[in-house]
């Protein structure tokens, strides 16, 4: 799989109302800025990867979009309207480690959580929603594990469960925090499949990614982040050695890795 597989890149075709646009976003934890003046626009139907060194604010970027951390300034627009008004069109896949996998629920229970918002207050999960959850679970190829307790899952299966939960939400934008972190190859491939399916269905994904060597394979859009947006745009244009150097700066080993990856990708 290569970036070119995804079809021609046309940067000029931005619709007036991009699925996700971020303006002047600044986030600070106790006076220490984590994100600084981020301006970002993700065009429709893209698989966008967010890369950057540790502590660059990648996860924070997602959380700030979702109102999970307080913003010092800035606004997040979803299809041209404020995030709060269009919340149900955005889906979030948190980091796997963020929850307790010993929690007494089944895999299907977790996936069904994606439908809670649509159900609304006090209404229990109904058959329609359970079917929808099951469908999502089948998509990530975990259908036969639906009734398992979640602690019985492997890391990759946990990740796919989270993905299924997001799918069950039937959103238009997917924000994923390190879905490829510490998963087995089968899961990685399954996730890539799903991302492609999503893109083909006109959905937009913003994925925090840590593995530079696969960026060109997986994503057609890339955001290089280190507190500020160093570069953002089509992978072919932006994922350059120059930009990587600017993003990773002094972290020589990482940079070496990145450069290496780049050479591989170009090859």
């Amino acid at each position, binding site marked *: 799989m290569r970036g070119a597989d995804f079809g021609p890149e046309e940067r000029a075709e931005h619709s007036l109302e991009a699925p996700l646009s971020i303006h002047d976003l600044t986030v600070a934890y*106790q006076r220490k800025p984590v994100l600084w003046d981020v301006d970002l626009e993700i065009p429709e139907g893209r698989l966008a990867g967010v890369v950057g060194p540790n502590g660059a604010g990648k996860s924070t970027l997602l*959380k700030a979009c*979702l*109102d*999970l951390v307080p913003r010092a300034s800035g606004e997040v627009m979803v299809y041209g309207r404020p995030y709060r008004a269009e*919340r*149900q069109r*955005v*889906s*979030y896949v*948190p980091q796997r480690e*963020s*929850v*307790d996998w010993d*929690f*007494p*629920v*089944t895999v299907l*229970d*977790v996936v069904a*959580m*994606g439908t*809670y*918002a649509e*159900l609304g*207050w*006090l*209404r*229990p*999960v109904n058959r329609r929603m359970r079917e929808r959850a099951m469908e999502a679970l089948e998509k990530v190829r975990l259908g*036969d594990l639906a009734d*398992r*307790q979640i*602690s*019985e*899952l*492997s890391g990759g299966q946990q990740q796919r469960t989270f993905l299924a*939960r997001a799918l069950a*939400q039937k959103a238009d934008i997917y924000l994923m925090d390190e879905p490829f972190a510490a998963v*087995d*190859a*089968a899961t990685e491939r399954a996730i890539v499949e799903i991302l492609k399916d999503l893109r083909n269905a006109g959905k937009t994904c913003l994925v925090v990614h840590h593995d530079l060597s696969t960026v060109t394979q997986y994503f057609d859009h890339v955001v290089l982040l280190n507190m500020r947006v160093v570069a953002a745009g089509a992978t072919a244009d932006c994922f350059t050695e120059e930009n990587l150097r600017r993003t990773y700066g002094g972290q020589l080993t990482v940079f070496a890795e990145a450069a290496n990856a780049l050479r591989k990708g170009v090859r």
Partner: protein
Amino acid sequence: MGTGAVLPEMRVRRQTRFAAVGLFLLLTGTGVLIALEENLLKVFLLRNYNTRLVVLSTTLLGISSGMVGSFLLLRRRSLMGDALSHATLPGIALAFMGLVALGGVGKELGWLLGGAALSGLLGVVAVTLICRLPRMKEDTAMGIVLSVFYGAGVALLGLIQEMPGAGAAGLETFIYGKTASLVGSDFQILWLITGGVVLVSAAFYKEFKILCFDEAFAASTGWPVRRLDLLLLGLVTAVTVAGLQAVGLILIIALLVIPPAAARMWTSRLYRMLILSGLIGGMSGWIGATLSALLSKLPAGAVIVLVASGFFLFSLFLGTERGILVRLLRHLSLKRRVERQNLLRAFYEVLEQRAGGRSPEAFVSWQELLARRSWSPRLLYRIARRALEAELIEEMDRSGLLLSPEGLAAAAKVTRNHRLWELYLIEHADIAPNHVDRDADFVEHVLGERLTRHLEQSLPDILRTGAPAVPGSPHGL
């Protein structure tokens, strides 16, 4: 890796589970029967007014605290319940002082409980606010709130004892409770609160579930997590306030924490845990109060907590989901399984080397097997004995062992799975081939058939089509 997934046969069936709970109840019942007396029937039929009040109150309290406590436990906020219950004391004292200052008697229950609820919630808010300060962890905040509020309460009680004209007597009973002396008005407040708590926790089941499991995701889908949190803590406050009269603010925390912790040992489904926790809490209340009604000089409040602790100890050891015994059994079973597979594989490899895998004579000497792996003769003998019992081995004597046809088939299958996995790792996971063996040993035993089949499909060019044949080992044996 989930051990439960590997060992479906180890999952004790639900009937067994209920039988275990039933057995315990029966034992407790017998214990009570030993103390059999003429008023046994009276107590069990709740003929006496006071016994009826107390038993019903403590049972209701146990049910509601067990249910709310489950959410609290899963939200990892059990200590918050502790902080909250201690934080009620200054509220009681201040309400009392206010009533006296306004010329009242000071002992009007409704006002005192209102004060308790208010200052309990204030304590919770204080915890949340302190948490927002830099470098403040939640447990620190709860520690601060617990000690400061409780200290303030004790100090206020000290002030009250010097106030003229006030019948201060009785405020101390909120600390330890006075279960036996519950009156009708207490019961009314209690069943209203506990009934409400049970209803609300059932109604907000879905909301609390998502809140407790994944707060960030809940927030991202638009659930007001702060308000839900407040609602949950509000329920805890309500239970605490209801329990002040019955068991006091020190022991109520036991009813909030122990039943859910015990219930968790038996199940991995939230709704079952809720029901079971409510049951255990209710049973603790019922048994404790009944014991106090049957035997003299037993204060009910303390007995209730002791009974709950008994439930917990029982569940800790015998719980069918996470009990110590079950875990030991699971571990033992996994160990035996691994040992047996190692034996079979060693067997197969010996045969394979000897005659290219097509030897009809499936007899192997002890020495050949011992040379395969680093196991002691005694261990090998024990493993072989178990394999003999499982009819994988047909015969064994001083010289060696003879594999049965089933054993041969099993050995072939085990070896095949193992090799497949090794191949998979080498092909896809960029692991150096000489590092594969140990990893493969490990995962193979955890994989199960489904995934192995999946692996087979992912390696079509290596597997010969047709009967499940064993591919050659990719590294030198």
